[in-house]
């Protein structure tokens, strides 16, 4: 029996022992005004360490001088437990180990965190558990152990099969390492391996990108994530581009690259289901879909983000939570308080709808009427966006589709989502403002009536 199966049984027994099933029912009645799916969440675990810095990365990661795996494991477990209890979710739908380079963590750490999850909530046997993997020989060697620890999906940071590109990006693997790692992962988890690919690399042309992608796809499994290399301030790459040492393709070229990638992927049987994500044979990242569908998630580890209702302390609104950024401080805080939550911001109704809108439109399917109604039972999509001239203009321009099924971007619109979203957010704001003024009028009216009443007495 794998460790996971054992834990699942253990958890079920615990639930029976505490009569949790009954309390769930009670809670769902008492809190029917809570945001949807408040009873379940996904879990993101951040491993903050990397062996070296990639030239383009400005993510929250640290190159450790020494690393105490035992302390890290203990703290990740502790924070997982604290936040799971705070959220009072009964079910964890998926787990994602991201980083940093989480494949540098010891498989026992992954197992320990999953064990903690299972102790505190239901984690189904077929729940997606993803690990980001750096395709180095070391990464490849531990894939099997990670599987035994409970991982059932690998996301591999291949980025490119061109060794020159890999060197420019400062990756610590080459194309051979990448091919071997993907192949090993596919053997271990057939149909559950995702490959990250980057375009708009220094010196890359639309044509060379297309042929690189065509070469890469046959070795891929059923899932590809496509990223544009962004030159972020504060990175080595930024400096290199600034000084003219490297040059990245311009806007028109990257537009062509994205277009051709979408075409090549489609031809190879990959179906785009999100701005950056493609899958075939129905392969998708369940965990990421959770983000785009506005579901709850708990973030554990330095700098991790979460969105959940802290029901254990009587919370009724979803909170945007951020954990302390630096690993050392985070460790201290977890050891002292059981968690390293640095910031909590309550998402009001409008704030929640804004996120539902922004994230939902990233998906091909967009936001269905049913999905929107879950979050906004009082006003449907047509009501909020249907009358807007700006939205109609986007529809007329062939970028946006609003119909009985819901709201979504067209194929062209998906590439321009970031330009569409400010307009949509403003429309949502207008809707809320008009509602506020109606409320104020009603309020004033009732006040006036009250005044009359008092005057009469």
């Amino acid at each position, binding site marked *: 029996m794998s460790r996971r199966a054992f834990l699942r049984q253990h958890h079920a027994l615990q639930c029976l022992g505490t009569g949790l099933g009954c309390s769930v029912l009670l809670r769902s009645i008492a809190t029917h005004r809570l945001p949807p799916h408040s009873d379940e969440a996904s879990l993101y675990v951040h491993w903050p360490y990397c062996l070296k810095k990639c030239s383009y990365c400005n993510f929250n990661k640290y190159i450790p001088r020494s690393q105490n795996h035992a302390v890290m494991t203990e703290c990740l477990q502790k924070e997982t437990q604290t936040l799971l209890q705070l959220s009072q979710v009964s079910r964890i739908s998926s787990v994602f180990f991201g980083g940093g380079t989480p494949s540098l963590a010891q498989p026992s750490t992954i197992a320990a965190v999953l064990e903690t999850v299972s102790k505190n909530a239901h984690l189904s046997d077929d729940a997606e558990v993803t690990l980001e993997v750096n395709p180095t020989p070391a990464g490849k060697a531990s894939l099997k152990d990670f599987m035994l620890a409970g991982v059932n999906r690998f996301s591999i940071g291949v980025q490119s099969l061109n060794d020159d590109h890999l060197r420019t990006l400062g990756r610590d693997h080459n194309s051979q390492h990448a091919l071997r790692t993907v192949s090993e992962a596919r053997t271990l988890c057939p149909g559950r391996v995702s490959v990250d690919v980057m375009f708009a690399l220094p010196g890359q042309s639309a044509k060379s990108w297309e042929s690189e992608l065509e070469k890469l796809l046959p070795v891929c499994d059923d899932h590809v994530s496509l990223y544009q290399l962004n030159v972020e301030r504060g990175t080595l790459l930024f400096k290199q581009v600034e000084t003219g040492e490297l040059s990245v393709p311009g806007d028109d070229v990257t*537009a062509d690259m994205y277009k051709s990638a979408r075409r090549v992927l489609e031809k190879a049987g990959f179906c785009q289901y999100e701005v950056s994500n493609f899958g075939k044979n129905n392969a998708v990242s369940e965990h990421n879909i959770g983000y785009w569908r506005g579901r709850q998630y708990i973030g554990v580890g330095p700098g991790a983000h979460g969105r959940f209702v802290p029901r254990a302390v009587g919370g009724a609104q979803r909170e*945007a939570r951020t954990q302390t950024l630096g690993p050392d401080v985070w460790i201290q805080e977890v050891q002292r308080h059981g968690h390293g939550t640095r910031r909590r911001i309550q998402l009001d109704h409008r704030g929640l709808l*804004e996120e539902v809108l922004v994230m939902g439109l990233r998906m091909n399917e967009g936001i269905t009427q049913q999905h929107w109604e879950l979050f906004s039972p009082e006003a449907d999509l047509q009501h909020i966006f249907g009358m807007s001239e700006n939205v109609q203009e986007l529809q007329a321009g062939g*970028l946006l589709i609003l119909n009985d099924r819901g709201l979504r971007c067209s194929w062209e619109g998906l590439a321009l989502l*970031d330009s569409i979203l*400010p307009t949509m957010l403003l429309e949502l704001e207008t809707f809320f403002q008009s509602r506020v003024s109606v409320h104020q009028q009603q309020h004033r009216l009732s006040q006036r009536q009250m005044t009359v009443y008092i005057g009469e007495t």
Partner: protein
Amino acid sequence: MMHLSLFRSHGLFLPFIKRCPDIKICRIKRRSQACVTVITHRWMKSISPARDFSSNASEKETFDMSEFPVERIRNFSIIAHIDHGKSTLADRLLEITGAIAKTASNKQVLDKLQVERERGITVKAQTASLFYQHDGQTYLLNLIDTPGHVDFSYEVSRSISACQGVLLIVDANQGIQAQTVANFYLAFEAQLTIIPVINKIDLKNADPERVEKQIEKVFDIPREECIKISAKLGTNVDQVLREVVKRIPPPAARVDDPFTALVFDSTFDHYRGVVANIAVFGGRVSRGDRIVSAHLGKSYEVNELGVLRPDQHPTETLYAGQVGYIIAGMKEVKEAQTGDTLYLQKQPVEALPGFKPAKAMVFAGMYPMDQSDYTTLRSAVERLTLNDSSVTVQRDSSLALGAGWRLGFLGLLHMEVFNQRLEQEYNASVIITSPTVPYKAVLASAKLIKEHGEEVITIINPAHFPERSLVEKYLEPMVLGTIIAPDDFTGKIMSLCQTRRAVQKNMFYIDDHRVMMKYLFPLNEVVVDFYDQLKSMSSGYASFDYEEAGYESAELIKMDFLLNGQPVEELAIIVHKEKAYSAGKAICERLRDAIPRQMFEIAVQAAIGSKIIARETIKAYRKNVLAKCYGGDITRKMKLLKKQAEGKKKMRRIGNIDVPKDAFINILKRT
């Protein structure tokens, strides 16, 4: 000459103003400062607290001005091209006559505005009375400093009309420049005695003989009459004073006549009101007299009067031929405009000839960078115009730039000085739009004339430009420009002038290789970047100056700019038919570069009526930067999107196009 007009505040500047108000703030500010000091030391009133000029005992006395009959008075100005040493010579004259102590720091004592010191020009005329011993007698020499640029030619002409002679300074190295010529003619036409002074003879490259020849050739003044000096070193400066006494006649003024005085400058003091500088053309005026200003006909009681040394020294009376200041309870500078006449209420006289109210020739819009600064900027503009009645201020508002003003200036330099003072003295951050000139239209029908109440209307705002069918003709303001440059550049300059629709009036060599050219320019052709181009194409050697030359008929048209067919009101311009295509194309190109690409293609068009004459296309972009967005990215993403949404609210929407304020600033601002 042209500076970046997009003024931003300088972090270091404000504390400096606070620390040294006497250097940074204009003359009037200084006096206010002085007044504050005086309040605590009233008994010291006669001491000038602002500046420790001299330990000379006579400084502390009140002067009995009756000691100076007309015969021992000389009134003169110094006129010169920028940086030929006018202010340095003035400093030396003040030192020699004991008006100020000799110190190393007496650098351009009369130039008190920061702009003046920086640019080596005099904006506000200043005056100093000097006591000079000559042949055993004390002479009263009134040095009437003039504005150093013909933007202020009206002020110059008023200052000059208070004088009987001028010192015409020419740099021994640079020789005669455009402004030297313009200034010479002002003095010449006023029939003043002109004493040519060749300055900077100490310079290594000085060639006073060549300059003497130029003076002889251009001004027809015998070379023997030139005084060669070094104002910096004081060489021959004493000779200048001797010649002033010898050559310049005393003023033809009689004490027995009724009191008549010319206002040749006025400034505003927060504590005492308007301070008018006057030249007494006849009679006498004393404290307590009731006087009348001819222009407005208002009467005032003289509270204080005196001489300027160059600080104010009160006296009991000023007599015919003398020059001094007068304070008479006037509340606004408009009550004592330059050129106005003052007389005694009981003895009315005819106003002196030549008075005309200031006339704005260059207009520019001014808007606060941030609308929340509107009130602050408004009070800064008000304070500045207190001292300068020649700036006209009209409230204006632009859909793109918000509430602001349309300001009228005497000329380009005047505008520049105003802006610079606004920036430097009030630390204001403003957008100045590209300058325009006042056009006129002669209306065609009696009906229209009746409607407007006049046959000729002045058009400042393109929105008010009457259609061709309604007018008989349009008129544009002209200037007569003088260009002096080494002859290597003649060809280039001629072709530049040609592109500016200029007509050559004459051209001749002022010496072996310097050419003076006179061109009649449409004013709007020189207001934007002409001077910059002239300077750069001549490696800085060409000088340029202009004087007004009336209005001439011109083929003017109004040009609109359209974004996807929608006109953008604030971009409309009035342009000469000949220039329509190039102006239209240039602005379309600037719009193309300034408006960010959007989701739709944008047609940028220049149109005259319904005819499109230029077009640029801003291609639609096809893709945003493709960035992943997972759980950890949401907060950042939302923040960015909300910021963009807020920014979108602030943009001006024209049709389906969002135009950021920056794009308008880029198009409208002075370049």
